[in-house]
């Protein structure tokens, strides 16, 4: 009970913390080089999309690939629109940086948006040459990263500050976790009160999914006698991916961040599956890796490295699959939207929107399917780590 109120209070507080900034932002956020006024209505459309894509308004040609890539990236603020006079309307998020020179700083991202600098921090542009571990110098892009500069605008030697900011992805992950907590704590309470009975309301939506994961994913792949230990992980990962996939499809403010299409997020999820698989591996599993039954002894020097690589490729494929599917879906939708701005025609908006709607429906299916496949393959890998029969 108290946990639920805590969660609701946190959401309300974060809402109070964020919203006053929207109104103050549009006033103070004038662009340093104000663009020429847009003349025709159609031009204004493509113009704002350009600014949307680049964060930099100008008379450049609309580039659909930068536009799409900028929208699937993790950013420090929620850019909503750019007005005709070059003012940006966006929801700022907290920036938390730790620099070796000046320590820990926290401020809202509107202070460093659109070329401004605050306390010596600003958004990076272009790229720098850095030395990698082998001593070769390679080019490293600074786009989207926060850099520390001195009074003359030169980058400091100390390197990039550590960035712990609440970015769009972090914010949306927090939001999804809160939604999941509210839903499941409420459900758990009503189950505790009423026992297992006819599902009502939200229960009727969630219960089939849980039963589905249990009966169609966990039991057939892990085994009826030991699946229970892994149900919390499987359900968590399923609902986390599902809700983030679905929230990523909603194109306005507190949603739309590309969480499950972020390789870092899918990497961590795959690492969980990897460790759970390794730690639940039994004797037969490790025997299969280091001394495959039926394989001649002289072949083992080849088979053992192959088997060990196989341990890593399975979660690697999990990571890439989720990342690529969600990112590709977002890029397709954004490309269809860019059609309007490529041809600079309002008439193309109709077919474009129909296509976007169609893709969105497919994405709804993909959102569920990818959550299901991630869970299914996790269960399968865990089940494969605990074979029941000895094949020798």
């Amino acid at each position: 009970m108290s946990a639920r109120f805590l969660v609701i209070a946190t959401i309300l507080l974060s809402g109070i913390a964020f919203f006053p900034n929207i109104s103050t932002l549009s006033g103070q956020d004038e662009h340093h080089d104000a663009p020429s006024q847009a003349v025709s209505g159609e031009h204004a459309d493509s113009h704002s999309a350009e600014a949307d894509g680049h964060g930099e308004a100008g008379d450049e040609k609309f580039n659909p690939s930068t536009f799409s890539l900028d929208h699937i990236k993790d950013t420090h603020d929620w850019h909503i629109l750019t007005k005709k006079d070059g003012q940006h309307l966006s929801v700022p998020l907290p920036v938390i940086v730790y620099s070796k020179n000046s320590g820990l700083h926290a401020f809202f991202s509107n202070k460093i948006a659109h070329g401004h600098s605050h306390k010596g921090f600003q958004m990076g542009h272009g790229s720098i040459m850095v030395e990698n571990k082998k001593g070769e110098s390679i080019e490293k892009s600074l786009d989207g990263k926060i850099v520390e500069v001195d009074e003359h605008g030169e980058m400091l030697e100390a390197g990039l500050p550590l960035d712990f900011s609440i970015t769009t992805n972090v914010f949306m992950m927090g939001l999804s976790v809160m939604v999941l907590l509210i839903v499941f704590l409420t459900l758990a309470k009503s189950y505790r009160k009423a026992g297992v009975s006819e599902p009502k309301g939200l229960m009727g939506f969630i219960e089939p999914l849980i039963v589905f994961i249990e009966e169609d994913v966990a039991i057939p792949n892990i085994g009826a006698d030991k699946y229970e230990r892994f149900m919390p992980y499987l359900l968590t990962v399923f609902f986390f991916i599902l809700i983030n996939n679905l929230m990523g499809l909603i194109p306005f403010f507190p949603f739309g961040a590309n969480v499950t299409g972020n390789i870092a997020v899918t990497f961590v999820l795959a690492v969980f599956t990897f460790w759970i698989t390794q730690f639940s591996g039994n004797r037969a599993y490790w025997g299969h890796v280091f001394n495959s039954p039926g394989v001649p002894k002289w072949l083992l020097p080849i088979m053992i490295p192959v088997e060990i690589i196989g341990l890593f490729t399975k979660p690697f494929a999990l990571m890439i699959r989720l990342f690529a599917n969600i990112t590709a879906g977002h890029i397709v939708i954004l490309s269809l939207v860019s059609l309007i701005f490529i041809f600079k025609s309002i008439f193309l908006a109709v077919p474009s929107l129909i296509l976007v709607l169609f893709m969105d429906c497919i994405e709804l299916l993909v959102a569920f399917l990818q959550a299901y496949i991630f869970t299914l393959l996790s269960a399968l890998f865990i089940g494969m780590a605990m074979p029941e029969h000895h094949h020798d």
Partner: protein
Amino acid sequence: MTGTLAGIGAGLAVIGAGLGIGRIGGSAMDAIARQPEATGKIQTAMIIAAALIEGAALFAIVVAMMS
């Protein structure tokens, strides 16, 4: 130039994966038509096999992306 070649490579990978997944889907349809009571099991096996092929295609696409 490299970008074009990478694009062609990604396309080839997708053709291979498409053929593979298409065959799996077709065979699963046949199997379901013959034995509708085994639909659930066939679907699970189908998705697992499709996911494995998709994994191979994704490796190719990652290689194409990196070049």
